[in-house]
């Protein structure tokens, strides 16, 4: 309303002059006109009677004679219109009679008429000093002051004059009007309103209502103004005044949103001035606000018809457009442009308007061309036209042209930096829509360089970089987006980028943030995120969490692709029932072979896991008996099912891994023969060699006795992975079986070296490792033995039975008092073959004197022969020796012999303080040549061995033995029993060999239970050295 208010103030000033019944003019002219009537001034002058009652006759005559001629001339000159001359006469008169107020007042009026405001004001002031409150003088001085620019003084004089009783009603009205006029000029609304209200009281005038209304509007009292305007409109004022009042009501009511009343006022005004274009446009606007577009258009059309020409057509365009008739609007504009195709600013505006309309009509290419032409024809000053053209090209599906236009706009010097940044972003979106991701990325980067900083830019960059496979850069962009807004989509992008970067641990956190974020992800995004987080958690070994994520992902819709992974995670989380349930919805017949094979794999794994829970180690000691058998049967059933599933899977999709797992199931079923084929196929298949798989095959071979094959697999497994610790010993054992003793020794030595590598968590494990090491050292000792030397002597004290006949000591223990040396040599290759021993032996045997170790030389026998241990696990030997009688009492012969020994607790048990000791020994021999004799020797011992320092043993024991001899020589039978103590010291051991030698002392005391030569008590001492 500012402009309208300023216009109203001008109208107000004009109205004020109007009330003074003069032509509208500027204020001084208006004021001058007011001061003109001489008649009124003459009558007012008469009111100024000079009191001369004290003046004498002479004085009066003298005064009159001195002054009247001047006054007379002045009056005559005034009557003749010669006011300047009259002025001088009056001035001369007043010099002579200064007290004549009447003439002084008249002189002031004359000065005012001559335009001497200053003089007039001075004269009226003199009058007012003498006659304070004299209304006519105040009125004239007010006018003079107004002319002199003293509005405030003038306002005071006009107000005072209006209060004077001396004024006629007409002059009082004039004084009030002047006061109102000056107050308006001073902006003193209150004073102006006060003056107008007094005027209204003494001389009502609807025209002044317009003034008052405007003043009320200016003072903020619109409602009062509207009431006055309504009163004016309803009055009998001239039509122009009423129309003006109605127009102002229209404006004020419209501004208040009271469109109905405004429209009513406007229509009433229009009735008074049907050709008022501005009123019609105001009404059109009001109608538009009312939603009455038809009426609005009608008003506009009427307005347009009032001024024919281009503007009329433009108004028609406007109206048509307002009425929704875009085609008509466009048509009119096209006509306009044809007449003025280029150049003028108006044509440029018409072109852009037409472009808008063409776009509305779906003629985007035409619109784009218009914008482009407008840009080119305006000296390329407004790059925004290029942008609009670009948008239209894009809408027309001409993406390439659109992007070119955007780029041109971007490069235009006139485009401000901030605008360029936005344009770059818009261009990026366009490029993105066109699949030009690289270009889009460049544009976004440019937008960033130009200072555009927003979540959407960073997020889109992230998406583009991700799509481009630049995951690290994408992650950076997503994180930048996150820094700008906590949007779950950014977290999701970061999670996917991290996942691609091989950082599942970080990805899972972002993914969870995306899932927990607000606003929630779109359902499909959320589902994809759940699927992804499931895989991430599976990677991280968080099986239960992975299963939970996938379960949630499938809450609304089953995803067959997830069934097998879900089952796997449920199984790994230990919930086998849930794992089985996860597989249940799958329709096996509908699955492609590879997927069906995967389903069967998982089902097999579930069965194996169930079987594992029934494994003997898991059942515990209390599950023996029937329950144990049931469990075993169930376990076998489950493993059979697993094998069956895997077989089916292999038929569908044979893979090395599946073959391996089938082999393992057969191993678990204790069916190594069945395990071998799949294990062989697994190793023969494509893919990297897996040493542990070769080892599994090796064990299967070993289990079925295919040692050579086992050895081959063990060897290549070990060659590929030296940390397969058990294989050293196991391969060593295979090599033993293969009679590759040197290889076996080397492997056992390596295994011995490896014993510190065995995990030892407690004493039992430590003992087990030590036992293993001891076992292997004994193996090495046995394998590496090339010869053995044994020397012994047995002293029999005091008994008559210490000497038995005259025969040489042919077999061990055949005499109670004897000694000898035995050398056994194992030839290469055949000497030791997997527990079977072949030795060349030679012995020197002799009897000793009673109570002495002195040999009886005549009894000395030297033997040379062969000894063979035919059975791997049984300590039994067969031997044949040629006896050479070296002593005079000795004889040549051939001795065939068989021995068998069994012992428990004979060997040292490191770290064990004592243990039970049991041995049995049988020795049967026969001389083949004459004299042909049979020799039998049996001995059993039961005792307790005490360990000292792990290399010395003391074994008190009881023994029972029998000796029998029969044949060509004298028969002999003896059975004795007694007590003895074996003191044995072990020596010659090293890192790889257990004790290889020992020295033994055996004191005994025994009594014959049977003796063909007579029973007796015998005390003996035997010393044995084995080397």
């Amino acid at each position, binding site marked *: 309303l500012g402009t309208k208010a300023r216009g109203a103030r001008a109208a107000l000033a004009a109205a004020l002059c109007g009330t003074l019944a003069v032509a509208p003019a500027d204020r001084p002219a208006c004021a001058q006109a007011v001061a003109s009537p001489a008649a009124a001034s003459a009558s007012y002058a008469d009111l100024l009677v000079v009191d001369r009652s004290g003046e004498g006759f002479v004085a009066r005559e003298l005064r009159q004679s001195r002054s009247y001629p001047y006054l007379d001339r002045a009056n005559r000159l005034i009557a003749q219109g010669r006011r300047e001359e009259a002025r001088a006469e009056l001035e001369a008169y007043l010099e002579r009679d200064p007290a004549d107020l009447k003439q002084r007042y008249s002189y002031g009026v004359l000065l005012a008429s001559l335009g001497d405001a200053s003089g007039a004001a001075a004269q009226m002031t003199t009058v007012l000093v003498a006659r304070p409150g004299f209304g006519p003088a105040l009125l004239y001085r007010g006018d003079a002051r107004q002319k002199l620019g003293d509005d405030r003084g003038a306002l005071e004089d006009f107000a005072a004059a209006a209060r004077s009783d001396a004024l006629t009603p007409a002059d009082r009205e004039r004084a009030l009007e002047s006061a109102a006029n000056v107050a308006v000029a001073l902006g003193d609304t209150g004073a102006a309103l006060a003056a107008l209200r007094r005027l209204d009281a003494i001389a009502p005038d609807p025209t002044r209502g317009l003034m008052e209304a405007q003043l009320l509007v200016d003072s903020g009292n619109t409602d009062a103004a509207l009431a006055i305007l309504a009163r004016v409109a309803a009055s009998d004022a001239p039509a122009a005044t009423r129309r003006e009042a109605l127009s102002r009501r229209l404006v004020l009511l419209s501004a208040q949103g009271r469109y109905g009343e405004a429209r009513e006022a406007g229509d009433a005004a229009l009735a008074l001035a049907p050709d008022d274009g501005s009123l019609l446009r105001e009404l059109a606007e009001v109608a538009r606000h009312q939603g009455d577009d038809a009426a609005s258009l009608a008003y506009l059309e009427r307005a347009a018809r009032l001024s024919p020409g281009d503007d009329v057509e433009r108004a028609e365009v406007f109206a048509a457009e307002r009425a929704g008739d875009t085609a008509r609007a466009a048509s009119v504009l096209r006509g306009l442009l044809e007449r003025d195709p280029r150049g003028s600013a108006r044509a440029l505006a018409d072109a852009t308007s037409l472009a808008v309309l063409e776009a509305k009509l779906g003629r985007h290419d035409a619109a784009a061309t218009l914008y482009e032409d407008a840009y080119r024809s305006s000296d390329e000053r407004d790059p925004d036209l290029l942008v609009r053209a670009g948008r239209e090209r894009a809408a027309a599906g001409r993406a390439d042209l659109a992007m070119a236009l955007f780029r041109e706009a971007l490069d235009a010097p006139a485009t401000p930096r901030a605008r360029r940044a936005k344009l770059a972003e818009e261009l990026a979106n366009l490029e993105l829509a066109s699949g030009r991701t690289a270009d889009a990325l460049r544009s976004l980067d440019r937008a960033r360089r130009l200072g555009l900083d927003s979540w959407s830019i960073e997020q889109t960059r992230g998406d583009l970089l991700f799509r481009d496979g630049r995951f690290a850069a994408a992650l950076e962009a997503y994180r930048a987006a996150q820094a700008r807004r906590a949007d779950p989509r950014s977290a999701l992008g970061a999670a996917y980028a991290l996942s691609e970067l091989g950082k599942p641990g*970080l990805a899972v*956190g972002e993914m969870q943030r995306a899932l927990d974020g607000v606003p929630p992800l779109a359902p499909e995004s959320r589902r994809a995120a759940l699927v992804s987080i499931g895989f991430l958690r599976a990677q*991280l070994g968080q099986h239960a969490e992975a299963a939970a994520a996938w379960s949630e992902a499938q809450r609304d819709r089953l995803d067959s692709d997830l069934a097998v992974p879900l089952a796997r995670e449920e199984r790994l989380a230990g919930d086998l029932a849930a794992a089985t349930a996860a597989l249940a919805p799958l329709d096996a017949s509908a699955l492609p072979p590879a997927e069906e094979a995967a389903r069967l794999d998982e089902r097999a794994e579930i069965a194996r896991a169930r079987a594992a829970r029934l494994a003997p180690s898991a059942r515990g000691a209390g599950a023996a008996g029937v329950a144990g058998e049931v469990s075993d049967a169930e376990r076998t059933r489950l493993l059979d099912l697993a094998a069956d599933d895997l077989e089916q899977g292999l038929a569908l999709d044979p893979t090395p891994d599946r073959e391996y797992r089938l082999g393992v199931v057969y191993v678990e079923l204790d069916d190594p023969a069945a395990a071998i084929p799949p294990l062989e196929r697994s190793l023969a298949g494509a893919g990297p060699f897996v040493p542990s798989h070769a080892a599994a095959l090796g064990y299967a071979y070993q289990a079925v006795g295919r040692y050579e094959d086992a050895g081959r697999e063990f060897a290549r497994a070990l060659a590929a992975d030296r*940390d397969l610790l058990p294989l050293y010993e196991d391969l060593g054992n295979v090599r033993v079986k293969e009679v590759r003793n040197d290889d076996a020794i080397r492997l056992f030595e390596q295994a011995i070296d490896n014993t510190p*590598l*065995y995990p030892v968590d407690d004493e039992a494990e430590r003992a087990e490792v030590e036992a293993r090491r001891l076992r292997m050292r004994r193996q090495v000792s046995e394998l590496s033995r090339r010869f053995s030397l044994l020397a012994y002597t047995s002293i029999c004290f005091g008994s008559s039975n210490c000497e038995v006949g005259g025969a040489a000591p042919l077999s061990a223990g055949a005499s109670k008092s004897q000694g000898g040396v035995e050398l056994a040599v194992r030839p290469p290759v055949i000497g030791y073959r997997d527990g079977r021993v072949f030795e060349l032996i030679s012995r020197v045997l002799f009897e000793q004197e009673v109570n002495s170790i002195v040999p009886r030389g005549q009894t000395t026998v030297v033997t040379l022969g062969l000894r063979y241990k035919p059975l791997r696990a049984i300590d039994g030997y067969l031997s044949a020796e040629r006896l050479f009688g070296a002593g005079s009492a000795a004889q040549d012969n051939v001795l065939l012999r068989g021995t068998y020994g069994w012992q428990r607790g004979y060997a040292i048990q490191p770290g064990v303080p004592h243990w039970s000791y049991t041995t049995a020994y049988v020795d049967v021999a026969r001389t083949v040549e004459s004299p042909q004799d049979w020799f039998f020797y049996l001995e059993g011992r039961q005792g307790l061995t005490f360990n000292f320092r792990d290399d010395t043993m003391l074994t008190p024991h009881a023994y029972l033995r029998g000796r029998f001899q029969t044949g060509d020589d004298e028969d002999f039978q003896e059975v004795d029993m007694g007590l003895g103590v074996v003191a044995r010291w072990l020596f010659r051991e090293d890192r790889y060999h257990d004790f290889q030698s020992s020295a033994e002392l055996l004191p005994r005391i025994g009594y014959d239970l049977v003796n063909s030569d007579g029973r007796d008590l015998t005390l003996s001492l035997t010393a044995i050295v084995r080397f």
Partner: protein
Amino acid sequence: MRTRRHATRAPIVAALLLAALAEGAGASPDREACRGATRLRGTFVQLTTAAAERPRAEWDTLFAEMRAIGVEQVFLQWTWADGVAFYASPDDRDAGRPIVGTLFDLAAQHGMRVWVGLAHDAGWWAGIDRSRPATEVEVFLARRRLQNLSIAQALSASVAAHPAFAGWYAPDEIDDRNWLGRERTALVAGYLEDMTVGLRNLTPGAAVAASGFGQGWAAPTQLADQWSAIVARARIDLVLFQDGIGAGKLTLADAAAYLPPLEAAVAAAGGDLGVVVELFSAAPTTAEAATAFAAEPAPLERIAAQLAQDQRWATGPLVAFSVPDYMSSLAGARGAALYAAYRGWREGCARGR
């Protein structure tokens, strides 16, 4: 000449960095740009045959340079590598390049302390690979334990009583993938436990340090749990976590996710957390040199950012990897320039305190 030119520019670079960082942070240089500037207290030293043959005077210069930038602790990454013993080895199979004694003497002379790394095994990553059965990994670790302890035994007589001896450093890097999960974590914790027990039997009371890194595989809480288990079981005194920035295993943002829970876990388990500040930028691997590691000195601005972040969570020292290789006069012109720039920046910050 080239080195000198770089060195001349270095203070300017440092000054620019101070200004840039301060502007970027919107705070005074003293507070923001200098955060962590004086926290770098240690460095790794990688011994090689060439390094061992370096004249003592060069080593002396290096130690003086290190001291000048606040280095107080030297971590010998290993003392045995690929059949070369950098000490007087009693094992005839070892090629001898004894340098450890010299380094101890120089450290003592410059007021530093030395952590002694043990045996480097190039087969570490293959040996602990997660695809291997746990039983085999356990055997591999047992081999490592024996090897490390045998070297510690050979060294203990000469270093344990030396005034510069700070402790033992287990040279095997514990990553966040191969040991994930209770079973695997127990393996590595058991390995380190056995080793620390063995080391403390050799040198009672000696501190033991171990190092590790994250590469985004484990979740931050998982890595924290892993180290909590290791420190608690093996009684590791100092965990050195590699920030991974130089090697490109982690970004600053990634590392920021790992460090807080790790610090809490290590502290709760009774250890200190040091952070290894990687001073290098790894060159991108190419098809031709996919396995070769190539790197160059990192820009000071990045190092400053690392220090600012790392120091927030380190209860132990910030340890460079490594001053000799990337930030010293021995490290070529760029290394020398970085040294000068870093020193200028650090001293500027120290003065501004």
